[in-house]
């Protein structure tokens, strides 16, 4: 399986996700934002975390219009897999690949802490190695992760089962306390209609080793790799 990690000026978690993908067995190539094509044979595109363009306009707004994003949109339209983490999720929303927007956290502060998520479904390329309803222990690190959408969009996401993860407690219960950034319906990540694009605020790539906090993030990368037949 081949992954392409798009690097924008101001991306800063690209190394973290490259490490996690490689550990799961993926080949990985970094792609500069000015490129107009993805490497041949790209199975998965990853938009990493960071502060693309300093987040100076709206988070992800400038990156969402980068040259490489046309290639990413075409890849998604062909049914190719796209994963946006944190700033990557913001970029996906700004580029029209996912609905809604990430607003400032409810407490108006950047927050970095360990966070449990409930896996809403395990029949997608991203989550097949998890159990449905499983609580996974990952982390968040963002100032603008407060998922917000209009009523109709929210209804559609819920109705079509497009919510990927919700902020939860250790038992997988959805509680007010667990939803620290104030996201609507405790949404931590959503899928596109065809389930091939996932945007999520939390960082599974930082929880892939027991030495560094835990391994609950591995499942996501292993799910992706296991979705593809091994190269001969």
């Amino acid at each position, binding site marked *: 399986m081949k992954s392409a990690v798009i690097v924008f000026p101001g991306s800063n978690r690209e190394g973290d996700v490259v490490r996690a993908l490689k550990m799961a067995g993926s080949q990985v190539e970094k792609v500069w934002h000015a490129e107009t094509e993805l490497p041949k044979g790209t199975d998965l595109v990853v938009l990493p975390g960071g502060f693309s363009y300093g*987040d100076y306009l709206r988070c992800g707004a400038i990156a969402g219009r980068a040259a490489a994003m046309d290639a990413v949109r075409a890849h998604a339209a062909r049914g190719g897999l796209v994963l946006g983490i944190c700033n990557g999720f913001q970029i996906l929303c700004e580029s029209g690949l996912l609905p809604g927007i990430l607003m400032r956290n409810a407490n108006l502060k950047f927050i*970095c802490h360990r966070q449990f998520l409930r896996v809403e479904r395990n029949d997608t390329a991203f989550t097949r190695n998890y159990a449905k309803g499983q609580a996974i222990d990952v982390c968040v690190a963002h100032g603008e992760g407060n998922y917000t959408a209009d009523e109709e969009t929210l209804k559609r996401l819920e109705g079509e089962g497009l919510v990927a993860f919700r902020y939860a407690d250790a038992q997988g219960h959805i509680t007010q306390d667990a939803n620290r950034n104030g996201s609507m319906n405790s949404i931590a990540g959503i899928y596109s209609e065809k389930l091939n694009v996932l945007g999520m605020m939390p960082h599974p790539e930082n929880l892939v080793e027991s030495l*560094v906090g835990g391994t609950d993030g591995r499942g996501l990368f292993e799910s992706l790799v296991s979705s593809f037949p091994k190269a001969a």
Partner: protein
Amino acid sequence: MIRNDVAITPELVKEHGLKPDEYERFVNLIGREPTITELGIVSAMWNEHCSYKSSRIHLRGLPTKAPWVIQGPGENAGVIDIGDGLACIFKMESHNHPSFIEPYQGAATGVGGILRDVFTMGARPIAALNFLRFGEPSHPKTRHLVSGVVAGIGGYGNSFGVPTVGGSVGFDKRYNGNILVNAMAVGLARTDEIFYAKATGVGNPIVYLGSKTGRDGIHGATMASAEFDESSEEKRPTVQVGDPFAEKLLLEACLELMKSGAVIAIQDMGAAGLTSSAVEMGAKGNLGIELDLDKVPCREEGMTAYEMMLSESQERMLMVLKPGMERQAEAIFHKWGLDFAVIGKTTDTLRFVIKHQGEVKADLPIKELGDEAPVYDRPWVESPKQPVIDPASVKAPMSEAEALLKLVGSPDQCSKRWVWEQYDHLILGNTVQVPGGDAAIVRIEDGPKGLALTTDVTPRYCEADPFEGGKQAVAEAWRNITAVGGLPLAITDNLNFASPERPESMGQFVGCLKGIGEACRALDFPVVSGNVSLYNETNGQGILPTPAIGGVGLLDDVTVNASIAFKAEGEAIILIGATQGWLGQSIYLRDVCGREDGAPPPVDLAQEKRNGDFVRQLIRSGQVKTVHDCSDGGIALALAEMAMAGNVGAEITAYPDGLPLHAFLFGEDQGRYLIAVDEDVAADILYEAGAVGIPAVTLGITGGDSLILPGRQAISVRQLKAAHEAWLPDYMAGKA
């Protein structure tokens, strides 16, 4: 002959922070009246912040060498060898005055400046730490300052992409008018790819890189070298504005350029901007420097030579390039969207020549600007010795348990989670120990090694006895690194003191430095970089003497480490080190009894070393996983922190005869550690300790959901945690 448009009046000289005799010295040096640009340049070079004129003679007493030291003080940052061809490059620096005036930008640019110091040397930053002191919580400005400083540190470090893994936050009325914001950065480079400021070769191009020059920060370094008064807030325009995005691009562009082999010398534009960086490069390389300011990328129109030379606009670098490699270098910088301009060249004249609009605006001897700066041996008086307090004379609390509950929820001892959750401490995926323990641990690349990092000092000890306080600051950093299993290697010091022109505060500086030097020698823990911040006072009220120590240690196998959390029930709790029940200057005395007196605990450096080496060996052999040093609040607070971190209680049954219980529990005797181990192993450890003459005694056993102190005084861990976690968020929400 150089044209002089502005008459240099005594008022103008004074405005530039130069004393009349310093100005005279300068006039004698150049043999004529300076131009306004030259006056600006010399004021930037000869202020306290850049010239170390009051501190220099005392700094010479610090040990700066060891076989593993590659570069000691005098460069952008210190460099130590950590094996496998890798070097650790680190430094700590203050941004106190700007942060008081404009907390968000002041703190943000403090972080930016120290990160730049580290990557200027070719290192990729892998961790940031800080040391913060604020005024008393009831002071009307404190909440605003805490909020702004913390947001500023996070805002810069998070966007830049470096994990902020550790630090220290405290409150005291002595910082009401002058807070401390010290930022530390730690980076990694290959030992054969380290870059220095020393220019070489005549006629080589001098290149300006990074953001454009604006009018911000003019005279920042001069402001940092003056005392504060009511009018200081009018100095807001001298605070720079940070752009972490530009800095991230500058990092990537610089590292890429360094790899290309084009860089001869590099210096970041920090305090005193273009002036200081250019003079340093030339003076270190025994070369002259000629700059053409028409080529400097400017943000604003009509900037004068004076303004350009003194601007402290952020995210800028100066480099000497190999001739012929300009094109290649420019391409790299343009890829990252950054400015690149050849603005001058090295010469063999040893002159610092500034041209602007076809005119020479300054022509100064470059070596003398640095070397001939005034050096003062300022008068100082020794701080009066405080009496040793007999523990039996200190009143016992109504209950030790209640006293402990009060301490865990006090401003200084409470959890600082509210602060460090605003810092991305997990990015890069190498943070093995997060904030809240004795020292942070970050893995080096993919392992197996790791670094242990900490910032420490106990200012009230330093005030009561500068020599012992200086020793203790170093010893505590050494101890915190040891407590996680690290071998302490070197320190950076950030020496925050009041006005050197008052003999009492100069005496504190001299005393602390002697203590730091003595401890560094005894513990093989040299100083490799640092920063001196004097004039930390407002309206004549000085801060507590605060020589913050940033310590770096090495773990050969990062998976073999210790943390403070109790990990299992039924483990024996062993105290390593001797206890006399030292209550002078203790947190108990201050926060429970309302007394701030007495001599601070002395540090026996030989014992410190012996005890620490013993504990480190226990960790490294895999026998011990749970360790916490005893510092503020003594054994009681250490136990509470271990219980809270692990959600496991403990019962303390043993304590020595002849010592009041509160002195045993809250005394702050130095050189001590608490460890928790399997009961089978405990006997061996006690035996081993006894064999080498290290005091070790079993205090009790872990288990249950309460901390039970002698006399069956129980507090539930839940209750401790509630108090510990509540204070800071409540305070910041206006509730406490």
